[in-house]
């Protein structure tokens, strides 16, 4: 019976009436999306000085005391600026991440790895500030909050280009002896 009703509704192109309306309250509670323009960032604030203790307690065991990384569990977070076009590119928050809001968002979502979601908004702003400061992007006493964080300009902000593929493979089957052949002229 329910099926017949649904069928009729769907075929008529009108909504099927399934699901329930979400309340503003529950949307607010579950919505943790942030955008590069700062939309979605919550109230709260923190500085690098405040973030140092949070980092030491919650992050350093995997990422090293100074964000240098600990293989294999924790990636390097600090340094590497200017290396991306070199023989040994080092991708860190400072050298690679294009938006400060992405740093906040990821820490808020997924860190620390053994207890994601355990950091308060203040702690998240503070530890984000700590990483930005260690990467020489902001000063130690600069307050990071929903207003200031999106204004931080990351060094690799313009380091991304739209996916240019198919960048190879459109020239038809490779010629004979493809294993040793020269790449097609570009």
């Amino acid at each position, binding site marked *: 019976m329910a099926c017949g009703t649904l069928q009729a509704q769907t075929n008529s192109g009108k909504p099927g009436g399934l699901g329930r309306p979400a309340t503003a309250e529950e949307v607010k509670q579950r919505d*943790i999306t942030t955008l590069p323009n700062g939309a979605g960032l919550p109230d709260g604030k923190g500085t690098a000085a405040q973030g140092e203790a949070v980092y030491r307690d919650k992050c350093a065991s995997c990422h090293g005391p100074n964000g240098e990384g600990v293989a294999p569990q924790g990636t390097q977070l600090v340094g590497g600026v200017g290396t991306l076009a070199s023989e040994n590119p080092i991708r860190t928050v400072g050298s690679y991440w*294009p938006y400060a809001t992405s740093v906040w968002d990821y820490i808020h*979502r997924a860190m620390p790895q053994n207890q994601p979601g355990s950091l308060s908004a203040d702690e998240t702003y503070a530890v984000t500030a700590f990483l930005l400061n260690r990467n020489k992007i902001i000063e130690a006493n600069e307050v990071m909050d929903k207003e200031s964080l999106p204004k931080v300009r990351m060094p690799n902000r313009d380091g991304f280009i739209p996916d240019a593929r198919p960048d190879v493979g*459109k020239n038809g089957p490779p010629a004979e002896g493809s294993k040793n052949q020269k790449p097609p002229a570009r």
Partner: protein
Amino acid sequence: MKDKDIDRSKDNRSKPDARGRRRFLAAGTAVAATVAGGLTNLWGEDGRDPGSPMRSYGERSPFEKVARRNSRPGQMTGTGSSLTPLESLYGIITPSALHYERHHSGVPMIDPEKHELLLHGLVEKPLVFKLEDIKRFPSVSHIYFLECSGSGAGEYQGASAPTPQQTAGLFSCSEWTGVPLSTLLREAGVKPAAKWVLAEGGDASRNARSIPLAKAMDDVIVAYGQNGEAVRPEQGYPMRLIVPGWEGNINTKWLQRLHVIDQPSMTRDEAADYDDLLGNGKSYRFSFVMEAKSIVTRPAGGQRLDGPGAYEITGLAWSGRARIAGVEISTDGGKNWRKAELQQPVLKNAAVRFGMPWNWDGNEAVIGSRCTDESGYTQPTHEQIVAARGTHARFHYNGIKWWRLQKSGELTNA
């Protein structure tokens, strides 16, 4: 003969010679096939024992040991990936128990009764769906591949992995059942300003990716079925996104929230991780499509041929851009190519099984495949990819893969 066959079955590596012989036995006489098949006393002097009782949920034969393997043993619990044993599979469907895994924060065990999918943002009517709601919408089922964009990425730096499983095993193909995402979006009423949909998982790390609205309205499905039963926990139970042809990471598992927005969120995975760093220091952003790729799975690295003679060269091909149009096989490192047979079905965004009979003369050979899709794209060589992107990219590698066959019958990386 019995003991010999049992010994063989303990070996979880794929050996075309062993399989070929088993097939021969099976085709030859029922007696031989039965004896080779198991330990049950079917021809004893005291009569025949009845077999095992029925089971409420089936298991494979205890003689079958084929397994996934961790990409990097020793990583933190719950993070990392496991690889599908491509060389040991038949046809195009990956058994759910062997589907590759990639988890950023372990596998959550979600009670479907407590699970809710929130759809909100730039919509007329924010909605909450339970699994039972989702199942009441008209369903669709499609065979689609999933491939982690990191599959085979070590090849950017040269031949790196010795077997199909290890070089291309972040690839699987299943039949997925669910409701088109467009159905849910229409139900909520998408506002004109909407451009993207953020999909968020219910794993501890709340893994999240932004999907262009055009794709979301096209062929994306919210899947609750995998190969005829509920999606496995490792694959996103009770519901996940399937984004056909696009990199695995965006196929959000344990889907719990869909946020319709006017710009991408720039989560870590899209802003600073699954981007290919080029030689000039710039990175491709939003490399969604998994381009045409194929790999010979038998005979392949890690296997051994049992002397000259007849073999089948077989493997898998796929493309996230268009249907596979053809596959060619070379046994001389690319000097000569021969057209392979494509097994039916040949479906868009699905694995395609190809094969070719081959008579090995006992000399060294270098075996590989290349595929072309209906967009006219042909799988490139390693050299072509490296010329275009350098060796620092970590994703979306789809170069031709070669296996070197020695006179001894051993197969290794070429």
